[in-house]
């Protein structure tokens, strides 16, 4: 009991790697920088010498076009035609979350296991949702949306402002941490062979599903806000 609690505490705490002035730089931020560098590098290498002529495209360009097209269809299917200008943000978030949820496979600590990271992403989501509402309906229409369909719904609509980001943040954090704890327990039972099928589910499948669920819900709320 004590040992497990200490182990969990250690995993929940995100180590401070170094300091810039008074600000401590956490492990999750450093791993996020690595992911950013990786994405930027892939984007840079894959988009050299693009060919506009469809008869002369290289294999590399075909891969990029398929990937971008797939992501765009995925996101536009969620937010719909009316709010498709928010698509690129969602695409960036799903790329970041997808990579960070499965980065545990190569030995890094997933940044999404830090509550602060998921809280930040959830805050960005709720601000974007409200911005989408204001941008579409104007301040007056946005304020009026709080008393729709009837005035008595006002407290519930205000509560939603808090519940939406909290549930987004807790869902992602809890899933990643839960998967991690279960994997640690399985490794404690039998470290040879047994973790492989579970790792396929908990590390890869669940991580990607949760990345999708995060942008799905954000996109759904945006769609709701601009209606």
């Amino acid at each position, binding site marked *: 009991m*004590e040992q497990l609690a200490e182990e969990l*505490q250690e995993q929940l705490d995100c180590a401070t790697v170094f300091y810039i002035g008074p600000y401590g730089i956490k492990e999750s931020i450093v791993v996020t920088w690595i992911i950013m560098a990786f994405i930027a590098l892939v984007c840079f290498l894959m988009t050299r010498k693009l060919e506009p002529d469809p008869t002369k495209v290289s294999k590399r360009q075909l891969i990029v076009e398929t990937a971008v097209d797939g992501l765009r269809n995925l996101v536009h299917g969620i937010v719909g035609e009316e709010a498709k200008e928010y698509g690129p943000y969602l695409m960036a978030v799903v790329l970041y979350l997808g990579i960070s949820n499965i980065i545990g496979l190569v030995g890094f600590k997933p940044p999404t296991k830090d509550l602060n990271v998921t809280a930040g992403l959830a805050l960005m989501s709720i601000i974007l949702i409200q911005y989408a509402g204001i941008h579409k309906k104007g301040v007056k229409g946005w304020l009026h949306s709080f008393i729709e369909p009837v005035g008595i719904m006002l407290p519930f609509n205000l509560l939603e402002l808090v519940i939406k980001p909290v549930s987004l943040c807790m*869902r992602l954090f809890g899933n990643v941490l839960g998967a991690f704890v279960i994997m640690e327990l399985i490794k404690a039972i039998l470290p040879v062979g047994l973790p492989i099928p579970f790792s396929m589910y908990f590390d890869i499948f669940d991580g990607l*599903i949760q990345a999708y*669920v995060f942008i799905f819900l954000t996109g759904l709320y945006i769609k709701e806000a601009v209606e």
Partner: protein
Amino acid sequence: MIGTIIAIGAGIAVLTGLGAGIGIGIATGKATEAVARQPEASGKITTLLLLGSALAEATAIYGFVVALMIIIMLK
């Protein structure tokens, strides 16, 4: 003594998994029925099922987070 009570509390918090299990079970059963009725729509049904399961699973995850907090905060 205190450790035992904390363990019981954490165990009760994890009982939320019950709801998620029932929910996902019902969803999967209905999805199977839907595929049996319309096999050509299985791709879309699978997507919806995965999404619904992920959302239903969230309640179990909340229970897990609460149990974790009970163990760590009250230790």
